[in-house]
C-alpha cells in the first residue's frame, strides 16, 4: 500500500514539469528523489563529450547567451549571472545538459538553452569557445574580507578534496572551479546545495556543508571569491 501510494505521488508530482519539458520525457531524477545518482551520465552529456567542439561556431552560438552572461562571459558582479570563463569544459557541459534535462532547475535561462534554441551540437562548440576566453572584469566579492575564516572552513571541512587547494576543481571528475567566481553566485549555490534544492547536488558535498551557519557560508563565499583565477595563480585578475 505504502509503495503504491508513493508511486502515485511520484507519478503525480512531476506531471506538470513532464508536460512542459516534453511529452515523452521521464521525470528528471533530482537530488533527494529515489534513483538519483549524482554523476549519472545522461545520453546527451555523453554525446556532447564524445563530439568535441568548434570554438569558431561556438562564438556564434554564444550570442544567445551573452545578453545575460556578457560578451566576455564574466557574468554580472552581483552574481545573478555566473562567470563562465575558467570553468572546466566538462563542468560546463554537465551543467548545461543537466539544466536542459531539468535535473538542475534554471527557469530564467532554460528557454534560451533548451532545444531548439540551442541544438545539441552547439553545446560542445560553446564550451570550446568559452575555453578561449578570459574575463577581464573583476568578479564580485563579499562586503568585508572574511577570507581567513573562510579558508579555515574550506580546509577543515576538506572541501579542497574535490574543489582543489586553489579552488581549481577537477576537470576529469566534473568538480567545478570555485575560485574567483562572484560572491553572490557562490553563496546562492552553496545555500541551494545545503538545502538540497539544487537538483544536481553532490551528496558528499551536502554532508560536508550540512553544519555551516549563514555566517560560515558567507565567509567561504568571500574566501573563494578572493582566490585568483587558478590559471593565473601568480598574477591576480586585473580589475577594470
Amino acid at each position: 500500500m505504502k509503495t503504491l501510494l508513493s508511486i502515485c505521488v511520484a507519478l503525480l508530482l512531476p506531471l506538470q514539469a513532464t508536460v512542459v519539458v516534453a511529452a515523452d520525457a521521464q521525470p528528471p531524477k533530482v537530488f533527494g528523489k529515489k534513483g538519483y545518482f549524482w554523476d549519472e551520465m545522461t545520453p546527451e552529456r555523453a554525446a556532447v563529450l564524445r563530439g568535441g567542439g568548434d570554438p569558431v561556431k561556438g562564438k556564434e552560438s554564444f550570442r544567445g547567451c551573452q545578453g545575460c552572461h556578457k560578451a566576455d562571459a564574466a557574468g554580472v558582479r552581483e552574481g545573478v549571472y555566473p562567470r563562465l570563463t575558467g570553468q572546466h569544459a566538462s563542468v560546463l557541459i554537465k551543467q548545461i545538459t543537466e539544466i536542459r534535462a531539468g535535473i538542475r532547475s534554471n527557469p530564467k535561462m532554460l528557454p534560451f538553452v533548451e532545444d531548439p534554441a540551442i541544438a545539441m551540437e552547439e553545446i560542445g562548440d560553446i564550451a570550446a569557445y568559452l575555453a578561449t576566453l578570459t574575463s577581464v572584469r573583476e568578479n564580485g566579492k563579499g562586503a568585508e574580507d572574511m577570507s581567513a575564516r573562510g579558508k579555515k572552513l574550506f580546509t577543515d571541512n576538506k572541501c579542497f578534496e574535490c574543489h582543489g587547494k586553489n579552488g581549481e576543481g577537477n576537470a576529469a571528475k566534473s568538480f567545478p572551479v570555485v575560485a574567483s567566481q562572484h560572491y553572490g553566485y557562490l553563496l546562492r549555490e552553496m545555500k541551494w546545495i545545503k538545502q538540497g534544492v539544487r537538483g544536481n547536488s553532490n551528496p558528499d558535498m551536502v554532508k560536508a556543508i550540512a553544519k555551516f551557519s549563514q555566517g560560515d557560508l558567507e565567509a567561504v563565499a568571500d574566501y573563494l571569491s578572493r582566490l585568483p583565477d587558478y590559471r593565473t595563480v601568480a598574477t591576480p585578475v586585473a580589475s577594470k
Partner: protein
Amino acid sequence: MKHNYKSIARCLSLCGTLAGLLLPATASADDAVVVPPLEERLQLCAGCHNPDGNSIIPENPKLSGLNAKYLNRQLKDFKSGDRASPIMSSIIPMVDESEFKALAAYFSEQKRTAGVSEKPDLAVLGKQIYDEGIIGSAVPACSGCHNEDGSGTDKYPRLTGQHSLYVSSQLTNFKSGERKNDPKAVMQTVAKRMSEAEIQAVSEYIVTLKEAE
C-alpha cells in the same frame, strides 16, 4: 495520466495545423498570378516602404539593410499565415513566391537611414535595457543578439534606426504571442518578460541607433 495530456496536446496541434492549412488556402484562392518584372513589383512595396525601403510611415517597417534570408522568410511566413498582419496579408496574395528572393535581395542591399526619437527622455532607460538587459526579470540585453549598434546578423534582424512605433508593436505582438514566427521562440520569451513601459523605452532607444560608416 500522461496519455491524457499527450492526446490533448496532439489534438491541439492538429487543430492548429488544420487552421493553418485552411486560412491561407482561402486567402490565396486566386492562383493565377502574373509575375511582373522586379522594378514594377517594387512600385507596390514603395507605396508603403518607400522605393529604397526606408519607410517614412512609422507603422511600416524600414526594410533597408535587413538580411536577405530574414526578409525572404518573413515574406514566406506572411504567405503561409505563420506571421499575421492585416495589412501585409492583404498585399502578399498579389505577390508570387518566386518573386520573394529578388525582393529580399533588393531591400537587403539598400542603406538604412537614421531615425529620430520623439521621446528622448525615454531613450535613457531604453539604452540601459538594450545594453544591459533587466536583471530583475531576467531580460537578456538586446545587444547580446542584435549587436550594440543594432546591425544584427543573419539570425538576428537589424534594428538600427527602425521606427519606434513598429518596434513597440512587434514587441507587443511577441509578448501576446500574436507574432510567433520567431525561430526557437526566443523573442517571445524576451518580450514576455518586459512591461509595456519597458517596451516603449527600448523602442525609443532603438530608433536612435546608428551604425559606424
